[in-house]
């Protein structure tokens, strides 16, 4: 027997006995290219259900496209002719209409909407899905709570097609929170059938199945490689999407993603690195769309609990020692909004994020450090998340170099993704570079999570200040009551305070970059920073 054949055949046998997956498709000839949209991204979903434990961001995209919510957002044009969701308007999705009372809101559901398997969608499915979201714990429950949606008793199925949400308190984030990814509507009977005693909400089933009524359903999935969707042809909650089949290929290497889109082998590349985006835009062969990510920023956080950063002068010194312009040019390639260099640290409007008054000024930084009694500098560490290395690493190198000029010797510390969250929870890292963004695009929302004395995990600096808490709580209350004047006063107050005491130094506001072939249209930016397939078309 030929040795090579022997090796080959035996390995083949071993492989066959280990795998017994069914043949997925007949090996018919290639699929027609024009009814299919090929999307490439760095990462794939680990769970199709946003209610699941540990669902990653790409998983949110699956949830968004495969489940309907009661309502969605309207659309508006951006300055460069693109489209973005409109934070302030709400449009019907599964609910045809609604009425908002003082302490409740009543929705009328579409009578012709069905799940993927043809079962009509009723109010009891909505109730079950919302109960699930507030009960399973973890991220979905947390997100529902952000809109004061906390208990199953708040959700009432009045009849088959009427659904009511009772408020436990006035909160102007309740309505926007009903249009985020979490409150999707699940096929309750189907999920219950696949639930077990240990897993009463069927989270195991929804992990790799999409029992919903959204515009798309997942028909093929290979973890870490691809997700294939087919259109739900009977979708009634909006205009029937043009694309019948979406193929989402996971391509970890940014270089490969760029090559693929540049050579026309992919239709849409989602979330491109800034450098590739800037260069491809200049080349002009592709449609390039870039939208500022709402309520998000790259920032440098300093631990306010421990010395030396518990001294506000030291923090201000650091804020004057950051090479902002260099970061903007060499790290962001100009594809970002600067959050520095305003005339002063006192703001005149309530927009967020907005620039602070610091800029690179080594002399001022040195003087402040001397005032703090540390003119000789000190040693510390500067940590970043390895998963965000494309931006964080060069950023940290520039910051490190600049800090050395005022005598601060920072050692750069790379932390792997899973461990980074762990370290953030411990709140002991002296200095970090990180990115954060909130779905709900309101300043008081951002501040509640990032600056409030409740010390949530996103308050990575452990900044705690009674006056700050009062301003944040005041703004939330004023918003719920619709008191515009009080709201503006408090918001300006907490922004001014955040800039004066700089527990975190805002650096830049990132953009979400998308490259498309010229024949693709209908892209829309969404607050959840995932791709909505429903409006896309391909000529």
């Amino acid at each position, binding site marked *: 027997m030929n040795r090579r054949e022997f090796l080959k055949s035996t390995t083949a046998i071993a492989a066959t006995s280990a795998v017994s997956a069914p043949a997925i498709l007949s090996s018919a000839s290639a699929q027609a290219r024009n009814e299919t949209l090929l999307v490439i991204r760095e990462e794939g979903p680990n769970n199709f259900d946003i209610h699941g434990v540990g669902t990653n961001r790409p998983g949110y995209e699956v949830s968004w496209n495969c489940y309907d919510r009661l309502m969605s957002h309207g659309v508006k044009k951006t300055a460069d002719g693109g489209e973005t969701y409109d934070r302030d308007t709400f449009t019907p999705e599964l609910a045809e209409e609604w009425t908002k009372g003082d302490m409740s809101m009543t929705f009328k559901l579409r009578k012709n909407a069905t799940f993927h398997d043809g079962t009509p969608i009723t109010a009891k499915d909505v109730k079950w899905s919302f109960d699930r979201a507030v009960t399973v714990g973890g991220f979905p429950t947390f997100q529902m709570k952000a809109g004061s949606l906390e208990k199953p008793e708040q959700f009432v199925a009045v009849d088959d097609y009427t659904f009511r949400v009772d408020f436990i308190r006035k909160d102007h984030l309740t309505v926007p929170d009903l249009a985020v990814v979490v409150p999707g509507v699940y096929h309750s009977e189907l999920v219950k059938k696949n639930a077990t005693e240990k897993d009463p909400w069927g989270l195991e089933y929804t992990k790799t199945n999409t029992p919903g009524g959204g515009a798309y359903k997942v028909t093929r999935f290979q973890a870490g490689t691809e997700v294939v969707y087919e259109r739900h042809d009977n979708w009634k909650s909006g205009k029937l999407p043009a694309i019948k089949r979406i193929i989402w290929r996971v391509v970890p*290497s*940014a*270089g*490969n993603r*760029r*090559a693929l889109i*540049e050579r026309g082998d992919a239709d849409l590349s989602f979330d491109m*690195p800034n*450098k*590739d985006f800037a*260069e491809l835009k200049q080349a002009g062969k592709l449609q390039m769309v870039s939208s500022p990510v709402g309520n998000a920023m790259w920032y440098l956080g300093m631990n306010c609990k421990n010395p030396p950063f518990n001294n506000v002068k030291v923090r201000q010194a650091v804020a004057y020692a950051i090479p902002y312009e*260099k970061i903007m*040019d*060499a790290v962001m390639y100009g594809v970002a909004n600067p959050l520095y260099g305003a005339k002063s640290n006192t703001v005149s409007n309530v927009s967020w994020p907005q620039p602070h008054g610091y800029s690179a000024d080594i002399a001022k930084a040195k003087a402040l450090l001397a005032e703090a009694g540390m003119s000789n500098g000190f040693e510390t560490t500067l940590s970043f998340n*390895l998963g965000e*290395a*494309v931006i964080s*690493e*060069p950023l*940290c*190198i*520039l910051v*490190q*170099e600049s800090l050395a000029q005022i005598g601060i010797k920072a*050692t*750069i*510390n*790379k932390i*792997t993704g899973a461990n980074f969250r762990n370290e953030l929870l411990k709140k002991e890292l002296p200095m970090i570079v990180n990115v954060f963004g909130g779905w709900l695009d309101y300043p008081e929302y951002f501040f509640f999570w990032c600056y409030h004395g409740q010390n949530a995990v996103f308050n990575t600096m452990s900044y705690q200040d009674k006056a700050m808490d009062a301003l944040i709580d005041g703004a939330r209350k004023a918003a719920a009551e619709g008191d515009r004047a009080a709201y503006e006063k408090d918001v300006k107050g907490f922004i001014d305070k955040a800039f004066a005491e700089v527990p975190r130094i805002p650096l830049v506001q990132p953009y979400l970059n998308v490259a498309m072939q010229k024949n693709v249209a209908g892209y829309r930016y969404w607050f959840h920073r995932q791709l909505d397939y429903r409006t896309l078309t391909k000529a």
Partner: protein
Amino acid sequence: MNRRPNPETAAIAVTEPPLPTLAPPAAPARTSAQHMSFLAHARYVITDNPVTGIAFGMFLVIAFCAIFGPWIAPHDPLASNTGSALQAPSLRHWFGTDQLGRDILSRVIVATRLDLAIAVFSVALVFVLGGLSGVAAGFFGGWTDRIVGRVADTIMAFPLFVLAMGIVAALGNTVTNIVIATAIINFPLYVRVARAEANVRREAGFVQAARLSGNGEYRILLTQILPNVMPIMVVQMSLTMGYAILNAAGLSFIGLGVRPPTPEWGIMVAEGAAFIVSGEWWIAFFPGLALMLAVFCFNLLGDGLRDIVDPQRRT
């Protein structure tokens, strides 16, 4: 006797597995007369084999860069200059500049010391650990042999690069841990070579003679066996140096290497990889080239050294 060549040696793709041992065991300790012929032989090998000669020349260049790197680098390897970022090779920057405008030539030169240090220290560590346990296993046999053998087998059963990744990830990514990880995955190789060499000499005439003249076993191990095993181990060291450099670079490539902004070849290739498609090939290319040349040099040198040290195995 097992006629199979030592498979594990072959598995560490860099080294040549010893021949099926058809030849009688290598010669005992050299006399001074043999020493003379040894030097003559060394000269012969270097002059006769142009490849070894070239490798030796390359080695001198690498060693020079490692020692004098910081002084001969034309620019500060750490100084960023965002105004001249991503410039193609030119007269001012022979190897171009990277994303932050740092001079790549300077970074490549300065990195030599660190890369070489990782390789040298890891090889030295495994030389001591693996060499000693291997010699002891081969000389004493019995339980010592069984325990050392089991440890080596267990390490071999791991996918080696993944084991190194695991060790560095678990202990934290510092240079010391990269050195330790590289040493551990080379351990079985050294054990096997040392064990085989010690084993064939266990009952050799000169050992018997030492025993008869009243030397203890440990003394024999240290004064008789070890010096004789040394030459072949030195060859082994030169051969695995290249592998050690590749291993460290591989770890850097997946993000487990040294801390930024320290220049290191593997991490520079990894950083540059993202830029290749956009046409800035020089960022990854030159460090990659330096990496390749260094590994190449050590591999050829190892071959040459073997020819010098062990003429009977000369192929």
